């Protein structure tokens, strides 16, 4: 909240008061069971001292790294932070996915002394994931030495309005960064790659060089098929997922930049992870990643490019990738009696499509629970489910449970996708999928688990607040640990 001045308090006193308030809020928030207190403390502290993030951020001895993008920023941040920790740096980060300025403020104020001064070692560095919309103010406040941008997909249009608009905001922010800053961009995403044109800062690209995962043609969820330079159609030689691929414009000649960090020979090992060869300026390496999906292989690539820019040895990056723990709701596994649930956060059409592909990647029937809410963090507009290719589920689903406040919209999506029986008429659906509709996410989960056979897995794909509701209940019933405890465990385990 950049509103208001520090008031009658002198700057030092304001900072101390802000930090003290924030820390108190943190303790209260956790004691009252109101959550992890990962944003409220920073929110309150910033109210008292609007210059807090700037003041504390500039005091970090080794500066800051910002990671933004639609998908994959949490995972990328985690691998990058892990590599820097093992390189002996003290990492200040916002691991809980609280990625607006108050989240960064909270991470910083927890490292202050009683006077509100940053109390860290000379080896400290900030590694923050930043929400797409908060990137510009975060750049202004922190003057990062390194920026990593993973990708730009259509996401929460009720908050960001248009994909192009987000790209414009990023461009303006990047233009402010000096030649001493390095910017790491995804070469496979045309709009992200184009951000690297004509910047004072140093630019470096990463990308996939693997034909075997290329698809014929772009999927409907592809967001930018147009040349960001001249507006004509881009021609895709390879297409990976969404609008990511190898492209060129035959009108103006602009094309995918050659990546310095490239992954090839990506071997996807179902839901357990992947192995890939990565070309780096320091030679080729093999990455073993315990997180599934092509998109996570890209996240590891982004993190290794970033770490390399900071001079971290590639061996350490390899180890950090291998040891990365899935973030909140990223293929998180829960044991419920003799059954298992695997929970996946979905936020946008491309993420949902990748999630479905992953779940369906190995043979056999699947038990699924899809949760759709329309709260602020989910996106109040649920129209994006019409760009998800539910049709790929045809004939593979033993149970489709739908839940959340907009469960009924999901039912329509499935019905019009030809997956449910439309009723009497000339067209019959060959094998309509067994459907369970229950708007209450917790009840839906246990009803679906009930119908999942012993030894099998229920896959849960849910939007943010739907997942949150379920997760809180699973924690309350002792199936899962609170996420902030996990995050803290990870910090201490690594540090």
């Amino acid at each position, binding site marked *: 909240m950049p509103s208001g001045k520090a008031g009658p308090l002198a700057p030092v006193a304001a900072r101390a008061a802000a930090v003290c308030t924030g820390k108190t809020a943190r303790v209260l928030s956790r004691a009252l069971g109101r959550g992890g207190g990962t944003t409220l403390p920073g929110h309150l502290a910033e109210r008292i001292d609007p210059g807090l993030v700037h003041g504390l951020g500039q005091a970090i001895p080794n500066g800051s790294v910002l990671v933004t993008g639609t998908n994959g920023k949490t995972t990328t941040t985690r691998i990058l932070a892990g590599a820097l920790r093992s390189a002996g740096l003290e990492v200040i980060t916002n691991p809980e996915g609280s*990625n607006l300025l108050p989240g960064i403020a909270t991470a910083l104020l927890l490292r202050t002394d009683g006077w509100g001064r940053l109390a860290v070692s000379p080896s400290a560095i900030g590694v923050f*994931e930043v929400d797409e919309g908060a990137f510009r103010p975060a750049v202004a406040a922190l003057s990062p030495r390194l920026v990593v941008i993973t990708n730009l997909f259509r996401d929460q249009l009720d908050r960001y309005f*248009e994909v192009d608009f987000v790209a414009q905001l990023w461009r303006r922010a990047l233009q402010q960064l000096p030649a001493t800053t390095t910017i790491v961009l995804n070469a496979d995403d045309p709009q992200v790659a184009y951000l690297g044109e004509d910047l004072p800062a140093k630019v470096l690209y990463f990308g996939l060089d693997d034909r075997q995962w290329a698809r014929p043609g772009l999927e409907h969820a592809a967001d930018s098929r147009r040349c960001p330079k001249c*507006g004509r159609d881009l021609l895709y030689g390879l297409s990976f997922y969404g609008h990511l691929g190898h492209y060129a414009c035959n009108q103006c000649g602009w094309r995918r930049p050659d990546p310095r960090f490239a992954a090839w020979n990506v071997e996807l090992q179902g839901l357990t992870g992947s192995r890939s060869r990565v070309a780096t300026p320091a030679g080729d390496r093999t990455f073993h990643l315990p997180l599934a999906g092509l998109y996570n292989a890209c996240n590891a690539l982004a993190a290794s490019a970033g770490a390399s820019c900071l001079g971290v040895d590639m061996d350490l990056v390899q180890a950090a990738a291998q040891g990365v723990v899935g973030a909140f709701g990223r293929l998180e596994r829960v044991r419920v009696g003799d059954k298992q649930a695997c929970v996946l956060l979905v936020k946008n059409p491309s993420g949902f499509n990748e999630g479905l592909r992953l779940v369906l990647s190995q043979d056999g029937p699947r038990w699924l629970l899809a949760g759709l809410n329309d*709260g*602020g963090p989910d996106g109040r507009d649920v*129209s994006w489910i*019409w760009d998800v290719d539910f049709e790929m589920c045809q004939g593979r689903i033993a149970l489709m449970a739908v839940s959340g406040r*907009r469960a*009924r919209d999901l039912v329509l999506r499935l019905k019009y996708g030809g997956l449910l029986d439309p009723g009497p008429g000339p067209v019959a659906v060959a094998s309509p999928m067994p459907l369970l509709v229950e708007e209450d996410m917790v009840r839906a989960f246990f009803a679906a688990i009930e119908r999942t056979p012993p030894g099998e897995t229920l896959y849960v794909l849910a939007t943010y607040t739907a997942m949150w509701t379920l997760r809180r209940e699973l924690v309350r019933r002792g199936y899962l640990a609170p996420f902030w405890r996990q995050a803290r465990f990870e910090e201490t385990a690594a540090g």
Partner: protein
Amino acid sequence: MRIVIGYLYPSVMSQYGDLGNVITIVRRCQWRGIDVEVRELEVGEAVDPGHIDLFLVGGGADTHQRLVCEDLLKVKGEGIRQAVDQGAAAFAVCAGYQLWGHHYHTATGEKLAGLGVFNAHTIHRAAQTGTRLDTIARAGSVRAVGNLVVKWGDQILVGFENHGGRTYLHSGARPLGKTLAGGGNNSEDGWEGCVYKNAIGTYLHGPALPKNPRLADHLIRAALGRHYRDVQLEPLDDTQEIVAHDRATERALARPSRGKRLWGQGVG
């Protein structure tokens, strides 16, 4: 029976799940044994007025407006206008709606000429207020974003709106209906959408047709009406559609259309 859908600019004007409208028309025809063909009409492809019975066009990014606008005027304009005058049906949403009016005044003050099917014009709110769109907050301050509920005859339509443009109907123009929740055309006069013959322009996306099956059938009936007389559509089992419609309407009317975010909790 048979109809041909002209799906305009699928690659640049399909931002808000607009494909859902196409799927809905296709399915509701198939379920009744009506043959249906979808022709994708991209930039550069002309329209033969005799061949399209129903035009569907969705929302797009502001940056694509000019590209589409040029194509509408130079390549497709005459064909679409003739078809609509001959009774072809159309469902133009958001940016599609705006560009089918007389003109569109962009956020930067540029005046783009429109197709002129709808007797209306649109001004971007940022141009009206002189707002610079350089932050998310400022861009948000000039947009109408939220659930939109519209009284259409004796029916209630529900969808979602997300637009910076304010549309003003000229005298004699017929609105689609009165807004019960949300901003509609311009957040001032309480009207939403515009109707000319069998063409409907609206800010309702969501997409609108799956949850508003009466509106979908209205369009199918109008499209069939070009070739067949006294069309009677076979009733379908719309139980799921009606439940989804009612739940969405309930949610839209139960709370203010602008949501508030708690403590700035971000999303990883």
